[in-house]
């Protein structure tokens, strides 16, 4: 009897297609002697689909057709496991399409990676890999993340955050505050986006306003921080949980623009989509990062601390900003479900992709066990003996 692992990918996110690539990579890397791999595709309108074709990247050349040929399902709790039920149900037919033991979310960005999908899995009561609801949400909201990391004494850049409405009401005031606080150049980011979408660099007031407008297209809230000079980006993945976690080797993404942009990040080798070489792994990078040993150790140490401070589990990639002249080092952001699950970093560290997935599943089961050891419900129904008079506010 093999455990069935449902890999969830897609979702209502700007990184929908990237997630499909990451998800299908994970599906093909799962050790088939130990697990049955079950693809669960989440369409852009948040419908769930499954079917044997959904594990093949070619299916997604045409998303509308992919969905037409798939079986639409809804997940339901199923005695310690979860079942995918056909939706709409067919009469006089077995509508249980599949049953799974462990869920593996491989979704990127808002409405998925930010804790949304984890909340659903939590309600299904199945073990799932990766971060829980809170750490996922913290990882997605850059402002909240900074607040928690600062509380733990970890280095983050000062930032200012405001909503679209606040900016509209006091454009001049906010602009003045930014100039006063940071000067130029500054970086403008949507507060809760996973990829580099909507991020820009401003050297002057005009670029600042354009950048804010751009960021507001993707998020209701914008975050501004000082741009680090002589910028060197360093990424490091962490695997484990709050009790025990290990860092991977570091990588240095090579930027063609000032800011690593969307097409750079994911599509620099799009022609090979589907193979293990596609996605994040094919990004132009220096691996391992060409940085002093001392700095590398510092990055690895801070990566583990950041991972634990946010209460993460599974695999996450922490991206750092480094001023190559002054040596200043800041935690920039965390990807709680990194593209391609950062498998290329772990391969370089000596853990192959199937083993990485094994470890993720073990961690999922561990968390599930520990949650079960805590009381969530009482056997007594308080309402059984309650008097309902006055329930509507009148007695």
């Amino acid at each position, binding site marked *: *009897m*093999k*455990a*069935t692992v449902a890999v969830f990918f897609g979702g209502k996110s700007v990184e929908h297609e990237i997630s499909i690539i990451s998800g299908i990579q994970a599906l093909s890397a799962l050790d088939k002697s130990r697990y049955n791999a079950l693809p669960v595709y989440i369409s852009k309108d948040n419908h769930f689909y499954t079917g044997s074709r959904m594990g093949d990247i070619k299916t997604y050349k045409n998303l509308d057709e992919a969905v037409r040929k798939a079986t639409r399902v809804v997940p339901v709790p199923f*005695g*310690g*496991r979860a079942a995918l039920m056909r939706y709409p149900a067919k009469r006089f037919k077995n509508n249980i399409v599949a049953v799974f*033991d*462990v869920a593996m979310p491989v979704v990127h960005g808002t409405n998925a990676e930010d804790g949304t999908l984890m909340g659903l899995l939590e309600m299904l009561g199945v*073990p799932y890999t990766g971060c829980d609801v809170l750490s996922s949400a913290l990882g997605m909201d850059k402002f909240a993340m900074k607040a928690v990391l600062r509380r733990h004494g970890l280095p983050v850049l000062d930032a200012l955050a405001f909503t679209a409405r606040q900016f509209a009401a006091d454009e001049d005031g906010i602009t003045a505050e930014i100039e006063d606080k940071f000067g130029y150049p500054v970086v403008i980011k949507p507060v809760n986006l996973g990829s580099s979408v909507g991020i820009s660099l401003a050297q002057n007031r005009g670029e600042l306003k354009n950048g804010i407008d751009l960021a507001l297209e993707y998020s209701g809230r914008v975050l501004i921080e000082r741009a680090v000079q002589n910028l060197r980006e360093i990424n490091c993945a962490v695997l484990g949980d709050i009790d025990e976690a290990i860092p991977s080797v570091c990588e240095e993404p090579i930027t063609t623009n000032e800011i690593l942009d969307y097409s750079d990040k994911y599509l620099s080798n799009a022609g090979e989509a589907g193979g293990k070489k596609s996605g994040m792994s094919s990004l132009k990078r220096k691996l391992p990062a060409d940085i002093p040993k001392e700095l590398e150790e510092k990055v690895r140490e801070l990566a583990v601390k950041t991972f634990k401070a946010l209460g993460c589990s599974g695999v996450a990639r922490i991206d750092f900003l480094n001023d190559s002249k002054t040596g200043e080092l800041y935690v920039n952001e965390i990807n709680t479900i990194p593209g391609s699950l950062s498998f290329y970093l772990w391969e370089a560290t000596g853990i192959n992709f199937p083993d990485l997935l094994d470890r993720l599943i073990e961690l999922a*089961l561990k968390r599930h*066990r*520990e949650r079960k*050891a805590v009381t969530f419900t009482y056997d007594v129904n308080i309402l059984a003996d309650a008097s309902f008079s006055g329930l509507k506010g009148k007695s």
Partner: protein
Amino acid sequence: MLEAISTAILFAAFAADCFLLSLHFVHMLQLNSYQNDRYRRWMKENRGQIIYRMGWLLLATVAVASFFIQPTDWKVRTACAIIFFIHAYLNLPKKAKKPLVFTARVKRLYATYFILTAAAGAAVYFSGMFRISLGGLFLWASLTGIAVLAANTINRPIENKIAGWYIEDARKILNSMDNLTVIGITGSYGKTSTKNFLASLLAARYNVLMTPESYNTTMGVVRTVREKLLPVHDVLIVEMGARRPGDIAEICELVRPKYGIITAIGEQHLETFKTVENIIGAKFELADYIPDDGLIFLNGDDEYIKNKKTGKPVVTYSVRAGSGCDYTAFDISVSREGSRFTVAAPGGERCVFTTKLLGAHNIQNITGCIAVAHRLGIPLSELVLPIRRLKPVEHRLQLLPNGYIDDSYNSNPAGFRAALDVLSQFDGQRVLVTPGMVELGERQYRLNRELGAYAASRCDYAVLVGEKQAPPLREGLLEAGFQEERLFIAPDLHKAIEIVNSLPNEGQRTVLLENDLPDNY
């Protein structure tokens, strides 16, 4: 017209009465594991209750009387219907500790029983001699207990087939799980607690499934495997109960345990086993099934267990300092917060543990579980937290916030003594509430008297539940010098609690609720 209506009412009353009566008998059959011999023994032992309280005598008398009633007009039939209704009303099901569960098997049993009853009813209706047959209705109702037995016997071949299919299905599932480690737990007592403790301890590293409460027969294990075992489980803990020799071997044959724990041997179910040697033999069926690369964990404090040769790799555990066992708990202290103790493992590793649980036997069982977990590769230090989090099994020496120690599921003399030892360690007013021990065969009277004597110096007040049960305990208490004015006898538990509440206020009160009679007494 009246004739027809009264006949219809009569048959409705008959059916209602038969149904309500059968509920009780089927319930008892279920509690006796559908085994005819045990069910018959229950009938024999509870003759008085069946004849008088359940109104068998009434039915039989009316049955005989109605052979003489002439003519059987609508008045007679209505009167008979009323008798049936009253009788049915008097036999409405009472609240039970373990209520009847309408399993598929019970439904099949009822199907057969209804066919039998309908046949009896039809025979009465269509027979020309309605006068005699009116007696037949009462006769049939009075024979409900036997009719249930007959239905069970008729269904037996089918039930065996169904059970056999389920067992094979469970075996297939178990065979398909290559990496599953099975641990068997047996013993006269302590096995349910040990099972729960072990599951919590092993969860530090492994995904554990255990057989749920009281599912300790082959069919209980089969249900657990078929309904609960998931591919992600690493360890299956199986509680194995033995009512007779061969029971444990049957479970072992199915689950093939690699590790086994024998917790304690006592005189439980002596009625079916006849001798203690038979009980020891039955428990050690588990050791016989342990493979050479497995381990059998034995309670080194139990004389019966200690002296038994197994020829298997053995690990022993103990709560007595200097016992020479592989794992020993020492420096044990007990307080209102619970217990604290140290365990030393072979190789010098040692660790201090705290737990909310009370009683030396709990520490003993935890030590056994520590031994198993340690041998399965979990360091002692990793067990501190799970042990701190252990919860008492419901109704087993469970310290409740209101000062009650609920030990109502205990049913053996050693457990009784252990609970009294715990009670005696508390300050303030100590009260014992108990109906004594049952199901101990010919030694029951003597054992209860000894328990009474043991209790005399360990409690300040004693409330004995059940007039039938009280005499030996009372005798023992008084012989040991217990003051008679501190001794009360209550007809049932609710009355006993009323008595406890009316006791004088003498500081903090601790009440031990020791044993509770099962529904079939």
